[in-house]
């Protein structure tokens, strides 16, 4: 469990996802590449503020901004989201083993009850 929670990258992913502007940006990018000014369009926000959100997403590895093309389009990246799914899987494993133990423990208790 600790190995999971220690993962700073995962933390960065969740932090990046915990803002509604950035989630909307990701949703837009899930439909296809977009430039920063296209991403800015739905929001009444200064360009520096928009750039900051884009930077957070980029640092979390959720998007990549092309350095080569003239308009520098942003694209969504799947890897960090896969890590979030893996985090879920590790929790699932912990609960599954706990539930196995719960079955044994309840059997013990029920048998002890019957014995008395």
């Amino acid at each position, binding site marked *: *469990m*600790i190995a999971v*929670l*220690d993962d*700073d990258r995962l*933390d*960065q992913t*969740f*932090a990046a*996802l*915990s803002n*509604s502007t950035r*989630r909307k940006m*990701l*949703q837009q990018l*899930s439909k296809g590449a977009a430039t920063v000014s296209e991403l800015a369009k739905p929001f009444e926000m200064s360009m520096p503020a928009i750039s900051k959100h884009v930077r957070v997403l980029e640092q979390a590895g959720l998007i990549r901004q092309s350095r080569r093309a003239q308009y520098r389009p942003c694209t*969504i990246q*799947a890897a960090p*989201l*896969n890590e*979030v*799914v893996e*985090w*879920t*899987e590790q*929790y*699932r*494993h*912990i*609960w*599954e*083993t*706990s*539930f*196995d*133990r*719960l*079955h*044994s*423990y*309840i059997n013990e*208790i*029920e048998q002890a009850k019957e014995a008395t």
Partner: protein
Amino acid sequence: MSHTQPVVIEETFDTSIENMWDMWTNGEHFANWYGPQGCTIPVADIDATVGGQRRVSMAMETPNGPMEMWFGGAHLEVSPLTRLVYTEVMTDPAGNPMPPSAMGMDGNKPFVTEVTVELEDLDGRIRVTMTHAGVPAGSPGEFGWRQAFEKLVAYIA
């Protein structure tokens, strides 16, 4: 990709609903089954009232020696024999939530998760449905991100 958030586990047990409720709300019982194989629960203080705290420590042997972790949290909903909702966050031994930055990483807010336990009596067998969701730091109870997340996961699947 077949799984999305959150973790949901459903199991049926041959016991009474009162007994099953105790498994989650009485620390002495909880300590006897919770946690991965090979770990022990030296401390499980559970005050199962709304706002009541949970304090649980988990100990295990690792190749690098013994390791101990502490978890805290509070009960958000306590409907006896029916439904229990509590938060979980990693803490230091004194019970202070630990932000990732305390461990030398990015992020100033503790990482909070939420556990929901629902019990149902099926003619003498008890069905337990456990849901464990990650909640982004600083926004417990905010569900919008989950919907967004599900869409994104569907997208990358």
